[in-house]
C-alpha cells in the first residue's frame, strides 16, 4: 500500500484537517442543507405566493391573434417539422423543394426538425401561446387531434384563402372537410398517415395475421404483439375490428373497446405500447406483428425483406399531419405561400417520393410516376380507390371526452 496523501502534510495532520472541515461548525451536513433550503422555500413562498400563480384560460378568440405581418420586409419563414419528414439531397444538407421555393419566391425557409412528439411539443409551446407571445415559428406541423385542440383553444390563425389557390384546387377529397376544421379554414394537410397492421414474416413463422382480432387473440403471438401509444390509432383499429365506426361512437362503444384491449393486456398478449420506436422491435423480430404507420413500413420494407403489412377487411385508420400558423407568427403570408407551394403537383410529388407517406395532393400520380414508378403504384403512398373505401377517420372529441378517454387509455397502458 502506498502513501495516499499527495501533499507533504503528515497523515495525522491531514486527517485532523479533514475532520475539522467535516465535523466542525463549518461542516455542511445533508441535514443543514435541507433545513436551509426548506426554510428558504417557506419564507419565499408564503401561502400568498401559492395562490398567486395559476394558469390563465386559453384565449378563445376565434380566428387567432395575428401580429403585424412582416412578410414583405423579411423574406423568410420559420418552419418547424418532424424529423425526416422532407426531401433531402444526397449530401444530406439541402432540401431540394425548399431550395426551389427560395429560387422562385426569394423567401428563405428556416427549416427546423424540432417536433418529436405531439404531446411534448404542445407542452413546450402552450405556455407561450397561452400568454399571447410569439413562438418564433411561422408554420408548424401537428397531427390532426392536436390540430383540432389548437383550433379549439384559439392558438392558430385563420388562413387567407386568396394566398392558397393551388391548395384549394388540389387538396384531395378525402381530406377536404374534417369535422374539426370544416372547409380547412385553419389547416392544410402536410401528409396523410395510414395506420395498418405490420408483421415480421420471420418472427411470425407461418402464423397468419389478417385482423386486429388475430393480434389480440392468437395464443401463438403471446407477448409478441405491439400496439401504439397513439390512442386514436390503437382504439380506432380495434373499434373497426369490432364492427363500430370511429367517426361516430358513444362512450359505451369506447368502453367496450378498452375492455377488449384490457383482456388482451391481462393475458400477456401485448408486449408493449410504443411510439415510433416500434420499428426497431419489428425489424429485430421482438414484435411478430403490430399496429404500424404506413410510411414507416414503406421505408422498413426497403431495408428488411421480412417486413410486410396487411390492411384488415374491417378497414384502417387514416390520420393527417397538418400545417398551421400559430398566433403572433411574424411571416403569415410567407407561410401561406409555402403551404400553397407544396400543393403544386411537382413539389408534392418530390416530397411524396422521398417521405413515402400519403400525399394529400390530387393529381400527384403522373408526376410521381416520373420520379419513382413503384412509389406511384404503392397503395401506402397513393391509396387506390379500393383502399380509400376502407379508410376511416377518428371523430373529433370535446375536451371533456378527450380527458376521459385518455385517462382510460392510459390506465390500459399501465399508467
Amino acid at each position: 500500500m502506498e502513501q495516499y496523501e499527495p501533499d507533504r502534510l503528515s497523515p495525522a495532520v491531514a486527517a485532523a484537517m479533514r475532520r475539522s472541515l467535516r465535523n466542525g461548525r463549518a461542516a455542511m451536513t445533508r441535514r443543514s442543507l435541507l433545513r436551509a433550503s426548506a426554510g428558504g422555500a417557506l419564507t419565499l413562498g408564503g401561502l400568498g405566493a401559492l395562490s398567486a400563480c395559476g394558469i390563465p384560460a386559453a384565449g378563445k378568440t376565434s380566428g387567432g391573434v395575428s401580429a403585424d405581418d412582416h412578410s414583405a420586409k423579411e423574406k423568410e419563414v420559420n418552419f418547424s417539422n418532424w424529423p425526416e419528414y422532407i426531401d433531402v439531397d444526397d449530401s444530406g444538407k439541402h432540401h431540394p423543394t425548399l431550395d426551389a421555393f427560395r429560387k422562385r419566391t426569394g423567401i428563405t425557409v428556416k427549416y427546423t426538425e424540432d417536433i418529436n412528439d405531439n404531446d411534448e411539443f404542445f407542452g413546450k409551446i402552450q405556455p407561450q401561446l397561452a400568454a399571447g407571445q410569439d413562438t418564433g415559428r411561422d408554420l408548424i406541423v401537428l397531427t390532426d387531434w392536436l390540430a383540432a385542440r389548437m383550433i379549439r383553444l384559439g392558438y392558430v390563425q385563420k388562413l387567407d384563402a386568396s394566398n392558397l389557390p393551388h391548395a384549394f384546387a388540389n387538396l384531395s377529397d378525402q381530406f377536404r372537410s374534417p369535422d374539426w376544421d370544416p372547409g380547412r379554414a385553419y389547416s392544410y394537410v402536410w401528409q396523410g398517415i395510414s395506420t395498418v397492421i405490420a408483421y415480421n414474416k420471420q418472427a411470425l413463422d407461418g402464423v397468419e395475421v389478417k385482423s386486429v382480432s388475430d393480434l389480440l387473440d392468437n395464443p401463438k403471438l403471446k407477448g409478441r404483439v405491439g400496439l401504439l401509444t397513439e390512442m386514436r390509432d390503437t382504439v380506432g383499429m380495434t373499434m373497426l375490428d369490432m364492427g363500430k365506426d370511429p367517426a361516430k361512437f358513444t362512450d359505451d362503444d369506447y368502453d367496450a373497446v378498452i375492455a377488449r384491449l384490457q383482456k388482451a393486456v391481462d393475458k400477456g398478449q401485448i408486449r408493449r405500447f410504443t411510439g415510433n420506436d416500434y420499428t426497431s422491435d419489428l425489424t429485430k423480430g421482438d414484435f411478430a406483428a403490430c399496429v404500424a404507420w404506413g410510411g414507416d413500413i414503406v421505408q422498413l420494407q426497403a431495408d428488411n425483406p421480412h417486413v410486410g403489412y396487411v390492411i384488415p377487411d374491417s378497414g384502417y385508420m387514416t390520420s393527417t399531419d397538418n400545417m398551421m400558423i400559430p398566433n403572433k407568427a411574424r411571416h403569415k403570408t410567407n407561410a401561406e405561400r409555402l403551404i400553397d407551394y407544396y400543393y403544386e403537383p411537382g413539389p408534392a410529388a418530390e416530397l411524396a417520393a422521398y417521405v413515402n407517406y400519403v400525399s394529400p395532393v390530387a393529381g400527384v400520380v403522373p408526376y410521381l410516376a416520373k420520379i419513382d414508378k413503384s412509389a406511384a403504384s404503392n397503395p401506402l403512398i397513393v391509396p387506390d380507390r379500393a383502399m380509400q373505401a376502407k379508410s376511416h377517420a377518428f371523430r373529433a372529441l370535446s375536451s371533456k371526452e378527450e380527458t376521459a378517454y385518455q385517462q382510460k387509455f392510459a390506465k390500459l397502458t399501465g399508467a
Partner: protein
Amino acid sequence: MAAVTEAPPLAPAPEKKPPRKRGRLVPYWLLLPGILWLIIFFALPMIYQASTSVQTGSLEEGYKVTWHFATYWNALSEYWPQFLRSVLYATAATVLCLLLGYPLAYLIAFRAGRWRNLIMILVIAPFFTSFLIRTLAWKTILADNGPVVHTLNSLHILDLTNWLGWTAGDRVLATPLAVVCGLTYNFLPFMILPLYTSLERIDGRLHEAAGDLYAKPFTTFRKVTFPLSMPGVVSGTLLTFIPAAGDYVNADLLGSTDTRMVGNVIQTQFLRILDYPTAAALSFILMAAILVMVTFYIRRSGTEDLV
C-alpha cells in the same frame, strides 16, 4: 496620472473596522450566485408546482387555486401500485449497484495500481453517450433472438426467473428484470464514484495495523475498511436510489404495461392527459416519500455528513 497621486494613501489605515466588515461579507457574496440559482431553478419551480397541485380547472377555463387537497389523496389511492413498484425497483437496483460497485471500487482504490486511471475512465465512459442511446442499446443486447436470451434459456435460468415472476415466457425484454437491469446499469457509476472516493482515502497502514493485530482479511474488511467507507456507501446508495425511483425512461423502453413506474404516470398525466394538478401532486408525493425514506436511512446508518 494625476488622479492616482491625488488619492489618499490607504496603507496606514486609521480604522480597522471597514476591512473587517468587508471580509465578513465576502462569503455571502460568493454564495450569492449559488443562492440565486437555487431560488430561480429550485425554489420558484417548487412553489409553482406546489400551487399547481392544489388548483382545479381545465385548459380552456384556466386553472385556479382552490386548495383542492383531495387531488393528493386521489392520486395516491389511484396510483399507489406504481409508487410501490418504483420503490421496489429502485431498491433492487440500488442493492445490485452496491453489490456490483463495491468490489469494483475496492479494486480501483487498492489493487489497480497503474491501471487505476484507465479503469476510472472505463467507468465514466458510458456517460459520453446519451442516456437514451445507452438504454436503447440494452434492447439490442436483450433482444428475443439475441445471444444473451438464448444462453439464459439454454441454462434454464429463465425458468427460474419466470417462476419468481421477474420475467415472462422466453424473453427478458418487457419484463421487470429488464427494467431493474437497465436502472442498475444506468446508475452504476453514481454508486462507484463515491465509493471509490471514500475507499481511496483510507490509510493503507490501517490495513497493515489490522494485520499486525492478527485480523484475518475478512475481519479487516468488516471492522476497518467497510466502516470507514460508510460515507461512500450512504452517498452512493442515495445517488442511485433517488434518481432511480423517479426514472421513467427505463420502464418505458425496457418494460411493459405491468412495469410502469411513478415517473411514467407523472409523464402521462402531464403531457398526455393534461391533468397538471394530479401530475404536480404525484411529484410532491414522490418527493415527500423519498425524503422520509432517505431521512430514516441516514439516521439508521448513523452518517450525518456525506462526503
